[in-house]
């Protein structure tokens, strides 16, 4: 059973900069939501606020009845487990094998001694291998994570997110460091997980066509605020120009920034 994720009046300041400024948002379970906006618009900060890697300066985040902003200790760690995070730079441990990297997703359930000894149960290993199998990475399971390609590493990160049994998946620019082929593989995996497991996906994207191709709903941020909230069809050229602040540029073509090789299909 999943609940609605709500952000109300959430702000986060870094010194004088308002990274996120009174953002309001509510996300229904099972949605595939893309977040777009120019660099520095606060997309990344917003995802980190949701996962509580950083704390908001003001405002509150809730998940159904759960007040996320007030969580501490074990409850906070369990919240982080419930909203798995995927990073642009994958954030894997290069020198550990792929299997152990995936098992890191189980640490929220572990006590001090078993995690210090890096000991995991057979069930957990089976879970990890199943997750790796869904991402076609079982042959690489015993390889060091650092020896894999970027696309493979990002899929390991997704497998790690899967074993957390999350309710939400947050992905911060998951394809920004990948070539087009790997980028679409990663996006396809996220969509499959969204469809098959009913996990809500919230993904920051820096290319419009990817957002248009995959997302049920697109949110645009500008200067820390939610500037646009709708479906791909509502993103007209005029709106896009406002989002990216392209008023000065006469001709704007989304294809120039595209990193996909597939032709966008209707969402």
């Amino acid at each position, binding site marked *: 059973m999943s609940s609605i994720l709500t952000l109300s009046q959430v702000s986060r300041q870094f010194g004088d900069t308002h990274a996120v400024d009174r953002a309001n948002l509510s996300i229904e379970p099972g949605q595939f939501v893309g977040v777009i906006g120019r660099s520095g618009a606060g997309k990344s900060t917003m995802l980190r606020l949701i996962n509580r*890697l950083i704390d908001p300066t003001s405002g509150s985040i809730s998940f159904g009845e759960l007040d996320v902003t007030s969580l501490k200790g074990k409850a906070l760690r369990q919240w982080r487990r419930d909203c798995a995070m995927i990073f642009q730079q994958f*954030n*894997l441990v*290069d020198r550990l094998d792929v299997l152990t990297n995936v098992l890191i*997703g189980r640490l*929220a359930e572990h006590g*001090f001694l078993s995690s210090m000894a890096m000991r995991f149960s057979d069930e957990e290993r089976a879970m990890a291998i199943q997750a790796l199998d869904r991402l076609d990475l079982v042959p690489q399971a015993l390889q060091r994570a650092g020896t894999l390609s970027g696309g493979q590493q990002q899929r390991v990160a997704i497998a790690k997110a899967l074993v957390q049994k999350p309710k939400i998946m947050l992905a911060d620019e998951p394809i920004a460091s990948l070539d087009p082929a790997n980028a679409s593989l990663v996006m396809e995996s996220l969509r499959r997980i969204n469809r098959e497991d009913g996990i809500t996906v919230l993904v920051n994207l820096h290319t419009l066509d990817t957002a248009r191709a995959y997302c049920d709903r697109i949110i645009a941020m500008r200067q820390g605020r939610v500037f646009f909230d709708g479906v791909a069809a509502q993103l007209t050229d005029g709106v896009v120009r406002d989002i990216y602040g392209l008023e000065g540029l006469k001709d704007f073509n989304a294809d120039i920034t595209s990193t996909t090789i597939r032709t966008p299909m209707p969402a």
Partner: protein
Amino acid sequence: MTLTAEIPSQRPAPIDRFHTFEQDFASKRQRSKRAWIIGSVLFLGLFALTSWMGDFFKYTQVSLPDGSREWRWIIPAGIPRLGEYISLTIPTLRWNSLGSDFAEWFWRWQIWGWLLLETLLIAFVGTVLGVIGGFVLSFPAARNLSPNKWVLWAARRYLEIARTVPELVWALIFVFCFSVGPLAGVLAIGLHATGALGKLYSEVNENIDMRPLEGVKASGGTWFDQIRFGAVPQVLPNIVSYTLLRFEINVRSSSIIGYVGAGGLGQEFRTAMSFQEYADLSALFVIIFVTVVIIDYGSEKLRHRVIGMEAQS
């Protein structure tokens, strides 16, 4: 032509641009030259002052062979005495009775052999204690990993105290507590090595990539999980390397701390000096020298193997 006209900024004419650069360049050179001169003068002044404070320019009275005394500069007056001391420690070795001369030089070889073994064991156990203490404390003592500034402060001060006090002084203290014997030596070396290794390890920790730790944290890992899974795998090869290096240093230290009664070969230095058996000193020196050379060689091989394994995988 139309293209340049569209660029909004006003660039000065080329001659002016280069002229400005030349002025900037000349003044930059002038500044660095001045900094160099000031630096050199300061350094030379400081050097002269410290050598004067260190009695480098001192004049002292020396006895001449004919019994008279005369004022001489201390450096040329003292150097011959160094040769005198070394010549005292040289054993008499003759070609036709080499075997018996050697036996006489190393006449206490049975005692020395045992003490050498004790020295190595003290160094080993001391290193193990130092590795445990240094490893545990290196994480709270690393600026990027410490959970909060109080823990950072406490861990750093403890490591500083442990390594600022020399092994010999720790040994004196522990001999007072635990009486004469190798236990005092083990504790002294362990404590000093904790401080030295903790510092080195924590500097390794400060250079790691923080992204893996963020990944562990975002999955719901505790601070300990972040360290265990994110940090330890990154620092392990460096830790092995520094540990082997420290073992070499500890062998040298444990061969001297016996001088204050903390076990090992050091006590023989004291015995030899008090009985004025100067040839024993050179025998002990040879024993320690050979041991240290062997251990240096072995640990260097091992360290390169660790680094090599690292490079392959």
